[in-house]
């Protein structure tokens, strides 16, 4: 194994490959900032360009750089303008954006970069040592377990269920699940709830809903209230762009990073779950583990609340390479696109890859590690400049926020209906915010809804009923965990209210 690692290192650390990795990270970061162009789209777009290079290792190093860059770029737009263009970075906005509003944009971006780097790096180490064993573990997961895992992911809504908002959070989750049933599902091929509108046949676009729920209301509130967010933008640019994390903060996020790297990686290993569930679950777990005072900070700019999803989604992205490299099964959308790149390069990922082409196997792993390092080295110096975007006067910033949100929904679809839907969701979101309804549960319900229904449906079909819940120990354990995640905060709140 160490020979293979050395071979991989030798390949990755040539001047040409280092330059391509840096270029990939830069391109990925810039394009990934545009809402709607997530890692999967960016990698897919870059494949034809990268294949022109010819050398498989260099091509894969460039793509790994693009991949990690795009993930970081997505986090940046989530943190700075509350515009999560991809499901995996929705949870990043929960605490990243409030931090930016408090004038801590630089710190938030630094924590995001360090958490992403740590999650990705620990993920690569786990990948190196445990890939074959984990691949066997992953195939033990059936629809029943996936359904239960999605349920645990949905329990993240408990994070927004505090202070008398339990029912509202639950209602928003149900609304998100209802919206997820619009259009065709992979289980039932007939379109549902489209009201005869052709554009809804393939369902509601994630970017349209996410931008409508988060970016449009933000632009509206910034427009009506000149003071809102002023603390963030009026601070001296040195303060906004300050990257420094003190020792206390570093100590606070270290255990979070350690836990979420392992948890995120394990979730990513299971085909089909990926970074989205990992990030929501990471957020929910860390909130439940936090002390009561720290828990109050979640959703208002908690560094733990930012570090958890950022670490988990990167570790899960790395974990999704396990089934691809060891079984030839793409575990996520991005790895499915990468599988296409492997095939175009005449490489067949699977059990034989490590034996027959060790130099390729290890150079892929080393290129992922290298992509992480380059991303950190390249982007940390850029953070102060990226953070200063918040110092832009509101008369420029607000139209640009709205424009980026709409461009995200329009690009690739060329469909004005998407924009009207986006604005419709935006107006609804403004009304919900006036009435103090939490919006993240709606998006969590929507993102996980399709997976929830598909896996529940398959599990029920296989078992011809719901007996799979008690017949499969892992399913039962996960469902009990989800129940605990939801019920404990509810009971705690109820007891607190009763004492008052």
């Amino acid at each position: 194994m160490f020979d293979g690692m050395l071979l991989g290192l030798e390949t990755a650390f040539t001047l040409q490959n280092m330059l391509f990795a840096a270029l990939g990270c830069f391109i990925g970061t810039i394009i990934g900032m545009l809402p709607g162009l997530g890692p999967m789209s960016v990698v897919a777009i870059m494949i034809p360009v990268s294949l022109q290079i010819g050398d498989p290792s260099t091509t894969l190093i460039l793509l790994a750089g693009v991949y990690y860059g795009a993930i970081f770029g997505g986090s940046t737009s989530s943190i700075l303008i509350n515009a999560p263009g991809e499901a995996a970075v929705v949870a990043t906005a929960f605490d990243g954006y409030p931090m930016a509003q408090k004038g801590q944009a630089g710190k938030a971006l630094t924590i995001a970069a360090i958490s992403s780097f740590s999650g990705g790096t620990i993920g690569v180490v786990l990948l190196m040592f445990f890939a074959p064993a984990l691949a066997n573990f992953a195939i033990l997961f059936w629809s029943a377990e996936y359904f239960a895992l999605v349920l645990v992911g949905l329990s993240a809504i408990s994070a927004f269920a505090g202070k008398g908002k339990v029912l509202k959070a639950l209602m928003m989750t149900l609304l998100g699940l209802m919206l997820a049933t619009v259009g065709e599902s992979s289980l039932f091929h007939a379109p549902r709830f489209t009201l005869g509108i052709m554009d809804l046949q393939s369902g509601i676009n994630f970017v349209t809903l996410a931008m409508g729920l988060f970016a449009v209301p933000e632009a509206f509130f910034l427009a009506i209230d000149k003071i809102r967010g002023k603390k963030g933008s009026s601070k001296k640019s040195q303060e906004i762009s300050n990257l420094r994390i003190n020792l206390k903060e570093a100590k606070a996020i270290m255990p979070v990073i350690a836990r979420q790297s392992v948890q995120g990686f394990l979730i990513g290993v299971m085909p089909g779950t990926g970074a989205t569930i990992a990030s929501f679950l990471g957020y929910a777990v860390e909130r439940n583990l936090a002390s009561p005072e720290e828990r109050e900070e979640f959703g208002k700019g908690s560094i733990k609340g930012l570090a958890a999803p950022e670490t988990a989604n990167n570790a899960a992205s790395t974990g999704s390479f396990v089934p691809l490299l060891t079984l030839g099964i793409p575990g996520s959308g991005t790895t499915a696109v990468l599988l296409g790149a492997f095939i175009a390069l005449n490489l067949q990922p699977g059990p034989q890859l490590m034996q027959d082409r060790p130099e390729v196997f290890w150079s892929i792993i080393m290129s992922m590690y290298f992509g992480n390092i380059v991303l950190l080295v390249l982007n940390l110096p850029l953070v102060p400049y990226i953070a200063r975007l918040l110092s832009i006067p509101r008369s420029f910033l607000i139209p640009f926020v709205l424009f980026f949100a709409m461009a995200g929904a329009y690009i690739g679809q060329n469909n004005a209906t998407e924009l009207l839907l986006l604005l419709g969701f935006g107006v609804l979101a403004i009304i919900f915010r006036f009435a103090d309804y939490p919006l993240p549960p709606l998006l969590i319900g929507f993102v996980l809804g399709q997976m929830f229904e598909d896996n529940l449906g398959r599990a029920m079909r296989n078992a011809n009923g719901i007996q799979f819940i008690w017949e499969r120990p892992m399913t039962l354990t996960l469902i009990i965990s989800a129940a605990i995640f939801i019920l404990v905060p509810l009971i705690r709140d109820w007891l607190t209210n009763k004492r008052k």
Partner: protein
Amino acid sequence: MLDLNRAVALALLAFSSGYAYLAFTFHLLPFELFLSVRPNTMPIALAVGGIICSLALLIKPQSSENETEGDGTVNRADGEYLKNLQNYNWIQGIALLVLATLYALNLRSLGFLFCTSTFLILGGILLGERRYTLLIPISLTASFLVWYLVDQVLTIFLRPWPGWFY
């Protein structure tokens, strides 16, 4: 008088009821009647959950305390805006949404470059920007850069000019 919380709960009840109607009347194919999970199984469960939840929100006593998220001096709770209507610039906010709607309606016919730069310029003017020598070049450059990146570099088609231009 019906407060906003209850009005929203009522709207959610109406939505859930409409959804329930569509779920119950969903046209099933003959073979689907014998399946353990039908296309309307989960929608029915969600609709029932939605009706129960929205009814509970409707009849639940409203708490008088208004939670303020984060730093109250900067990020006041959104509900606060409705208590002091005159203190905020509603016209700017609503006009911005109207402008965005006009942008959405005209983007295809007027083309990306013209429509986007007009939106950015008018949006800036609407929000009080009067430095035209700065606003116009920035808007034009930003529109062109995004179009160039998406259409020319990433090869995702974005019609740059109005349809009659071709």
